[in-house]
């Protein structure tokens, strides 16, 4: 029986790339079908899943490749969102011009923050990003004349061409899909390889002549770029941005999406965001202790599925959380190897 299962897993593993592509196509089909057959509620849920997935994937880029956990990522999303809102409210810009402002604001913040963390690692990296995020939140909350303070900024307009909920969903789907493709290409590029090399051993990469600080700075800004895009999409969807979104709590939430989904896999953050955002409206009304449920889920993942939901699924299907088949070698085969 075990041998049969191992053989079956082996066959699946041999086609794991095809399977992965198939899952991606399936996910895209589901996303495309939502506005066609879903309800207004599922349309909104789908839109939020797309936005939060992109946000979580940008964080996972750092976590997966360089083993760096940032707890200030809400600031990046907030920079994009507030940039759009401020440009519209105070300078009278339309969405597209405001989006450019949001992008510039987000990237400027990303560069400034990136310069602070490029030589930091481990707990120091985490603490600096916490401080960065809280500084941003503090400025947003206090600078009421510009940001609305605690009230936030309401009535942020969507692009005229995509102003209805369905049209905005399509817009978000196309934008997020394009970003995911870019992230994938970056991940598979030689730069992505170098990032993983630094994540595995920064000393060795340094000896080989690569500037570890430069690549940390680069990765931080690439992550910041995609988080800023997520922020622009976010404020267009909600038509609002407020200080609670950019608080530390927001940074922890997006980290949970990535970790629970599986930050080590490319699709893990998408799975994490989709799972948690879908569970929330159905589990939440059963208990007024949703954060406890969320915390318990994290404990279970950390203890029993460290590679997240995607890793757990891979282990189930392939016998390995990395997608590479765990080959079961019989005693005769071992003897053959020894005899050469």
């Amino acid at each position, binding site marked *: 029986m075990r041998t049969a299962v191992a053989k079956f897993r082996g066959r699946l593993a041999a086609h794991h790339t095809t399977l992965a592509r198939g899952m991606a196509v399936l996910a895209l089909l589901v996303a495309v079908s939502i506005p066609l057959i879903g309800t207004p509620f599922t349309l909104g849920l789908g839109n939020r899943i797309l936005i939060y997935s992109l946000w979580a994937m940008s964080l996972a880029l750092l976590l997966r490749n360089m083993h760096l956990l940032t707890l200030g990522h809400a600031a990046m999303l907030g920079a994009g969102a507030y940039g759009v809102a401020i440009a519209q409210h105070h300078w009278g810009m339309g969405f597209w011009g405001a989006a450019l402002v949001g992008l510039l604001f987000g990237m400027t913040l990303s560069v400034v923050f990136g310069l602070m963390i490029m030589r930091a690692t481990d707990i120091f990296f985490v603490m600096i990003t916490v401080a960065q995020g809280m500084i941003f939140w503090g400025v947003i909350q206090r600078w*009421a004349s510009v940001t609305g303070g605690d*009230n936030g900024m309401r009535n942020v307009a969507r692009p005229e061409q995509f102003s209805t909920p369905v049209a905005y969903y399509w817009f978000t789907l196309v934008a997020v899909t394009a970003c995911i493709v870019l992230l994938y290409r970056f991940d598979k590029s030689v730069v992505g390889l170098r990032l993983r090399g630094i994540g595995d051993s920064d000393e060795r990469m340094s000896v080989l002549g690569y500037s570890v600080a430069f690549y940390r700075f680069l990765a931080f800004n690439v992550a910041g770029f995609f988080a800023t895009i997520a922020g622009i999409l976010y404020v267009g969807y909600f*038509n*609002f941005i*407020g200080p609670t*979104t950019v608080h530390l709590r*927001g940074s922890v939430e997006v980290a949970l999406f990535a970790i629970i989904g599986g930050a080590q896999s490319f699709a893990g953050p998408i799975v994490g965001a989709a799972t948690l955002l879908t569970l929330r*409206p159905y589990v939440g*009304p059963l208990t007024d*202790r949703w954060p406890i449920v969320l915390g318990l889920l994290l404990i279970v993942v950390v203890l029993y599925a460290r590679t997240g939901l995607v890793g757990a699924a891979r282990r189930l299907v392939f016998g390995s959380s990395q997608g590479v088949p765990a080959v079961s070698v019989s005693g005769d085969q071992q003897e053959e190897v020894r005899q050469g």
Partner: protein
Amino acid sequence: MLRRSVIALAAATLVVAACGGDDTDGVEEPQAADQPEAEEQEEADPDAEPIRIGVLMPLTGFGAAAGEEAVQAWELYWEQHNYMSGGTPIEVVYGDTESDASAGTAEARRLVESENIDLLIGPIVGSVAGPVSDLMSEMDVPQIYGVPTNDLWIRDGVPDTLFTIEATTAEMAMHMGRWAAENGHERVATVCSDYLTGWETCGGFVNTFTTYGGEIVEQIWTPAGGAPDYAPVISRLQAVEYDALYMGTPVGDGVLLFSALSEFGLADQTQILSHKVVIDPGTLGVYGPEAEGILSSAPYAEGRDNAATQEFVAAFEEAYGRIPGTTGGAKYFIAHLVDTTIQELGGTIPSASEFIAKLHDIRIEDSVYGTWHVDEDGNALHDHFLREVVDRGDGTLWDVVNETWSGRGPSYVFDMDAYLAQPPYSQDYQGIGWPTSCDDFVDEADCPADLQ
């Protein structure tokens, strides 16, 4: 292995605790024993579709304490009325904003699209209320908001589907400021939280206190969310002379500040003046007996000697073992208001516009909020009470009423256009030096002598 099993067992126990809900979507029902008798049983109309009311509150996050009290007070009212209004059954569904704007908006959307509510009550946190109100307007669902709003809402405008039942934070403070100036206080120091609510809690007081002849000798701003050390605040207070101290530090900030004042012996050396957002039965228990004598302004006082208030307080205390504060009072009043309005509409909510329009016609002569009605400008006007913290006689502190003021609207006695022409209250602008003439007043009778 054993450690993992223990952790798993602990986790399972917590799951059971977390899922310990009931028919009311996880919110505890009032304990049924000794509930006041339900009012006369309404005859149910067999053909009436139930009215579904969504209650959107922070059940988790930093606003959870207020959210829980709000839900309890709301439920108490409907338990007393058998969940009936105008012959129509009332069904209530709950949503948790998690004290967060995006979560709150998503929950609001779920309540409308999945739960098909006819009316939304809430939320509480201001930064959540804004986007939720825009969403309700887009979906044409009436919404009642029962927390003091800030002036930015007055300046920016709110959707037509939103109805606020209370005065603004600034107006409540304005009543206190004028009273202080006209009742012997000449030199006041203020300590207020350095964020929007703190600015308005202070600004309203300072604006009217200085208008009517008082002098602000020191203004101290503390970080919202509490300062790590209040010794610098105490040092600054000890360096000035004042005959009253105004506290504009909401909730937890107020507790921390008062603890510091007590520790340094300042709490009983001067008259402390304050505001609804600072003084609440929930925090008075932490303040301790030194809090006796604190004066504050609010639309609700749990020790107020009137039947409506005392019946509510007694029923709430019976059900939940504690005195209801301003949040509970507000939600109980909202339930009363909703019930009255639905009855006036013949047991229905025909549409958002009709429901909101009918709210404007309602006048309540006696309630936990005193008298209440809506003026021609759409502002909810209610009594404001000068409250004093006293011992109830059993060691419990609560607020009794010393004076009652009539509501005047968001700009208090000032002309609205002139008021809105001034900057919003902030750390940099507290209304000192304005108004400059009697033209800035609605009624010349309110204009102080030195401006005439």
